[in-house]
């Protein structure tokens, strides 16, 4: 499980970009395409190579009306999955 102090970033070759033709955002990589849901997109937008997992959770908790633990669980689950898929590194 990703540590709260870890600093997640997109793996080399992975990019978050707008897919204007389909009115959505996607993560593109070599032979890969991920379509994040709304919550995942909010998390992915905060991967800037300097924010830690904790800082991402703080940011989301300040903006959304949800318990911090619930947000932390969502963030950790998503990042663990993307780490395993090679989309994110930490």
């Amino acid at each position, binding site marked *: 499980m990703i540590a709260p102090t870890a600093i997640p970033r997109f*793996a*080399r*070759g992975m*990019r978050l*970009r707008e*897919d204007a*033709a*389909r009115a959505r955002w*996607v993560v*593109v*990589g*070599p*032979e890969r*395409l991920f379509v994040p849901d709304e919550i995942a997109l909010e998390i992915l937008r905060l991967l800037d190579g300097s924010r830690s997992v904790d800082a991402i959770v703080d940011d989301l908790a300040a903006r959304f009306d949800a318990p911090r633990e619930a947000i932390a669980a969502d963030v950790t689950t998503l990042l663990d999955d993307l*780490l*395993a*898929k*090679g989309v994110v590194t930490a």
Partner: protein
Amino acid sequence: MNLPPPPPPLGLLAELTHRCPLRCPYCSNPVELSRASAELDAETWGRVFREAAALGVLQLHLSGGEPAARRDLPEIVAHAARAGLYSNLITSGVLLDTARLKALAAAGLDHVQLSVQDAEEGSADRIGGLRGGHVRKLAFAEAVQAADLPLTLNAVVHRQNLDRLPALIDLALHLGAGRLEVAHVQYYGWALRNRDALLPSRAQLEAATETVTAAREALRGRLVIDYVVPDYYARRPKACMGGWGRSFIAVSPAGRALPCHAAESLPGFDFPNVRDASLAEIWAHSEAFQRYRGTSWMPEPCRACDHRERDWGGCRCQAFALTGDAANTDPACALSPHHHLLDLAVRDAAIAGADFTYREMPRIPSEA
């Protein structure tokens, strides 16, 4: 017939040239190769990339032949970057030194996919038909690392190298690849001519599947391994290209737009050319892209099958290569009346030799 407009394509394969210093006996280029004089120029590729991006394409694969056989490759990559496409260079690595690679990175290249023919030098050079090729590939992979570009290692596997799959996985790690594509040979074109020398045995295949399963678990988070069971041992066909004319366009060196890079060898088609029509027009209206799109063209057993919108009837090129009719169900499907042809091929290959018919350019220049 007025069909609703198709969803936009996601991927574009730009085959920049058929020229290549390698002579792999399973090359996916058509048996009739195009000459350099027939190739689209960089400006035209730029227009095609802009049309593709406007249409909804996100990913661009720059392939060949060997794309680096073109001196204007940096210009082509720059066009892709300006169009906003994610560019993936599919290369043998033998024509690119550090300086040329840096020029491509500066032009905006996003990703490099390097092919290797084997993990063992002597065998790799024999399969690729180029002495010294493997060593040059290893040096190229180091240059990719030095240029800080992400790397995928692509290993086409078959009877003559599948036993070294563990070594290929080690090689991918050693070369710093984030992803390894283990691709079984697809048997049409050149590969069909060499099928007897390439088809693996079931025992080899089972060992390979076990190797991949174990490696994926052990290397989780370090190396992504893409691996698909080959058609000749499958019970259901693959959704070739995600379905004909559903998500993918290939453009040949001479500008022909194809629903699949191998489709050029199908008879009875007049494939549209990007010199004459826009990609949007080709995608929505050309007869070639509509012919096997969706499900209405399907014969039995596809027509009534629950899988028809999952596998889209499989591969048209394989159906043609094995049954003589591209509109038949892919014989890779166990429900196909031609499925036994695959078992016969496996039996023939089990007692065949290892000699190849290498890919060669035509000796007499052809028109395209």
